[in-house]
């Protein structure tokens, strides 16, 4: 028996989730279009803002477009390919992982690949337009963009998995995990110059918007190997924390010590 690789298996699961999200065509179109409208509205507000103030703490319109483009594309790809992160806490609390534990695969990978959201296509579509039209990027920026974007995606998913894993300890973690993940997105949509002191500390630790978008933006605007090392290290550290917390929680679940466990 030849084992299917983790990546091939993940791709199989994620592809099935994407097909499932296409199943109701009207719902798919409505959700993705409404996200485009929502994102477009936010962009128009920033356009109006920058029409009056040329810059915010050194951040210009192109920098904001880059920041918004990166966070939207991260949220878009996460929602399409790793969509299970959004309801992971609920899956843990409802005992849905029992069935996954009887399969010969990573429970975390199976949880992440089991959902895909139509609205995420709206995020991704808007992000591509914003990045191409307003972010002031050239071909030479692409390698930096790829590195910064990928590390931002890893940090974002890792933070969401860590928050969702609280469900192994806390029965009310479903809304807590969602709120915390929404906070990361919220903090990621403002220029980095507005954060200082405690808010900056939070943005670079608990709600790691700093490593999801702000450091990747700095990498693109002022490329350096030092900043590249920081984004890669951040991605590795947050991924390790997420994997560690999830597996500690899973061990607890398998000992029957979670908030909800039927007899």
């Amino acid at each position, binding site marked *: 028996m030849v084992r299917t690789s983790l990546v091939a298996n993940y791709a199989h699961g994620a592809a099935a989730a994407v097909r499932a999200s296409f199943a109701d065509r009207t719902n798919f179109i409505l959700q993705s279009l409404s996200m485009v409208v929502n994102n477009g509205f936010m962009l128009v507000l920033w356009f109006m803002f920058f029409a009056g103030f040329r810059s915010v703490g050194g951040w210009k319109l192109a920098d904001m477009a880059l920041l918004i483009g990166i966070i939207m594309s991260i949220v878009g790809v996460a929602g399409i390919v790793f969509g299970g992160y959004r309801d992971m806490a609920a899956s843990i609390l409802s005992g849905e992982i029992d069935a996954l534990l*009887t399969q010969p695969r990573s429970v975390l990978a199976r949880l992440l690949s089991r959902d895909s959201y139509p609205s995420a296509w709206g995020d991704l579509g808007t992000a591509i337009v914003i990045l191409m039209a307003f972010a002031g990027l050239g071909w030479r920026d692409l390698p930096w963009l790829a590195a910064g974007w990928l590390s931002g995606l890893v940090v974002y998913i890792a933070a969401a998995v860590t928050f969702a894993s609280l469900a192994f300890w806390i029965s009310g973690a479903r809304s807590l995990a969602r709120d915390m993940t929404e906070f990361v997105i919220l903090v990621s949509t403002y220029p980095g110059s507005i954060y200082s002191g405690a808010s900056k500390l939070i943005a670079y630790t608990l709600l790691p918007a700093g490593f999801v978008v702000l450091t990747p933006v700095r990498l693109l605007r002022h490329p350096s190997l030092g900043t590249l090392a920081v984004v890669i290290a951040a991605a590795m550290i947050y991924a390790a924390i997420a994997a560690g917390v999830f597996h500690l929680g899973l061990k607890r679940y*398998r000992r029957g010590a979670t908030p909800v466990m039927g007899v």
Partner: protein
Amino acid sequence: MSSAVITVQDLRKSYRYASRRGGLLGAIGGAFSPDYKLIDAVDGISFEIAAGERVAIIGPNGAGKSTTLKMLSGILEPTSGDARVFGLVPWRERKALAYRIGVVFGQRSQLWGELPARDSFALLASIYDQRGAAFEQRLKDLIERFELAPLMGQPVQRLSLGQRMRCEITASLLHAPSLLFLDEPTIGLDITAKAAIRDFITENAREEGQTVVLTSHDTRDIELVCERVIVINQGRIVVDQPTDQLRRRFLAHKLVTLHAPSRRVEIALPGVMRRASEPHLDVFEIDTRKVRVEQVIATALEGGGIEDITIEDPPMEEVVREIYAVAHD
């Protein structure tokens, strides 16, 4: 060498929970200094299951049967004791064991509701590393055996509960497991669908020499599918014996409810006992070893005026209570 597929020795599982105190102050106090209590969900059970056996684990709600199944399928770790499934320790060798067992949870689905079953089957094939001509042939055989061909292209959420359960069981058989765990496989199904699922499980187990371990609340599941019954109550084994023996003593009863607005129904037959009587409604317990159900119905209909008839098995809780009482006499 023992031919046992499953060996369980003094297996125990305790859950700790924080006891709730009454009142607002109690709730606040409990949040800071919780009183922890222990529940012994499984309290030292031991048994063996041989290859090819079909065994039911039954008991009332909270008896510990699902916990037992979860420990044997590698989901839960026990508090103490030992269990081997195909020589593997389930909670330590979860992934290796997963290739050899199939698991069906009656109240959970492993299929994508929005997609046709064939898409979920393809994903499960990839999860279990099944591919090539051998797998295609197996899938073809299963589709043929369980008459799934007309259902394969329909989104699972549009199938009836019975059709969906047939697909769930097929999904659990794709990797040709030698052992099938079924947790309440007929829950929520109508009589016809239940019968189809029972045939489905039994036929497959016979053809493939598969071992089946099943939990259910429906005594008919046990009678028609399993040849051995393990009764658990409060985490302990009360009875472990062949279904035939159990059937003779405890599963030979039916409850017949008759709705007759115009009269009180009287049935004077051996083996018929009145269980309850309310205005317009009479409930009789029938001992099927002494009288046939159709004979009871025919006698009741002779008097006329009956508007509705219900035939049921006694609730599992009642059967287990009776078994428990006899076992402790």
